[in-house]
């Protein structure tokens, strides 16, 4: 159970380019941070570095639990969700198959998966092949695992882009509840989030660097 994370003078490089350097941030339970920044500033890279998918060129990310620091791998593997730009859905499977797999994979159950889908208004679509879903429906399918399997740290990369108004509302509630439950949210977004979030500016974009 992650109660806080602190990013300490993190530096991320892509290719031979230093994207982010000396980046510091602490995020406590119930807190949300909105990462802003131009295209190519490094928001996605930062999120992936926090998730441990990219090895930082310097600095570290520390995960704190009730009883002291947690090893990064375990913390992420057990208690973090990463929603990237892509939905990561298999077009040829049915919506329900994918929802169920993603939920179980992240520690949810059949029941919680079904509940999550219902909550995101996917109920009637679960029988359809993912290929047939609309962009927003696919994104909701990908978001379902947030509700289906409870994990403390949410790393969200522009989660709301293809959602329609109502669904943004629903998703806003979801985030609010998560925070109220002591969760942490680190989200990259170009539009304001539907929740109170501490704005942080990332990097300089491709024209800097």
């Amino acid at each position, binding site marked *: 159970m992650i109660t806080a994370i602190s990013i300490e003078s993190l530096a991320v490089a892509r290719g031979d380019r230093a994207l982010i350097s000396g980046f510091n941030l602490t995020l406590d339970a119930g807190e949300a941070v909105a990462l802003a920044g131009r295209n190519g500033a490094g928001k996605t890279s930062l999120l992936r570095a926090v998730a441990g998918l990219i090895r930082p060129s310097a600095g570290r990310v520390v995960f704190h639990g009730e009883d002291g620091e947690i090893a990064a791998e375990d913390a992420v593997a057990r208690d973090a969700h990463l929603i990237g730009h892509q939905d990561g859905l298999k077009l*040829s499977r049915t919506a329900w198959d994918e929802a169920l797999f993603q939920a179980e994979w992240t520690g949810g159950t059949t029941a919680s998966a079904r509940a999550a889908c219902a909550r995101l208004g996917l109920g*009637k679509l679960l029988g359809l092949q993912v290929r047939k879903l609309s962009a927003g429906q696919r994104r909701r399918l990908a978001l379902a695992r947030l509700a289906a399997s409870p994990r403390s740290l949410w790393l969200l990369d522009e989660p709301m882009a293809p959602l329609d108004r109502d669904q943004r509302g629903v998703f806003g509630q979801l985030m609010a509840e998560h925070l109220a439950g002591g969760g942490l949210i680190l989200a990259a977004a170009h539009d304001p989030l539907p929740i109170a979030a501490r704005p942080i500016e990332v990097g300089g974009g491709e024209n800097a660097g």
Partner: protein
Amino acid sequence: MFQALVNPERFMAFSRWAAPLLGAIALVLAAAGLFLDFQAPPDYQQGYTVHIMFIHVPAAFMSEFVYACLGVASFLSLVFRHALATAAARAAAPLGAGFTLLALITGSLWGRPTWGTWWVWDPRLTSVLVLFLFYVGYMALESAIEDEAKAARAAAILALVGLINLPIVHYSVVWWNSLHQRSSLLRTDGPDMPAVYLAPLLLMLLAYMAGFGALWLVRVRGEVWRRRAAVLAMRAAG
């Protein structure tokens, strides 16, 4: 006739009595054919195995006949996008595969005693095998695409490509084997037949035709029902 059938309602009405009728005819013909068959004396060289012929030959014939039907249905469903044609194509494939498989199995069962081997790479045999593969590919493709309409059209395109190709395959195979030394004992023209065998054979052939007609109609009806059920379900789901 066709005009009457292209209207689904009319088709359902027609097939409701046509299917069982054809089925009955098939049974009668088959019974008669088999009776005559067993009246016939055992072949002097093939002994009792000759009975296989009455199952094998019609099956082999149907395997080609059904593919022709499949091709026509596919063409209609592609060009006129007619639901019945699509259903007909869908329904025909497994039947054709069945007949082809029957021809293959009975054939090799017959080959064991007569040629002393289950299988020889003879042109006729090979082309039947390829035909069987066409059916398998057709069904595999259709079942591999989720969206029914798209699956049907893709399969129809394949069926047409196959229709153009099958004759070529057939002749290329014949040509192939005539280039290499003749390998098998099979007399491709088939043993020239005394009437005692010919009569029952023809009866069996007709029986197969009628049987196919009956099964086909039944399966098409099934397709139509399935489609209607799906639509209703969609409406219900809203």
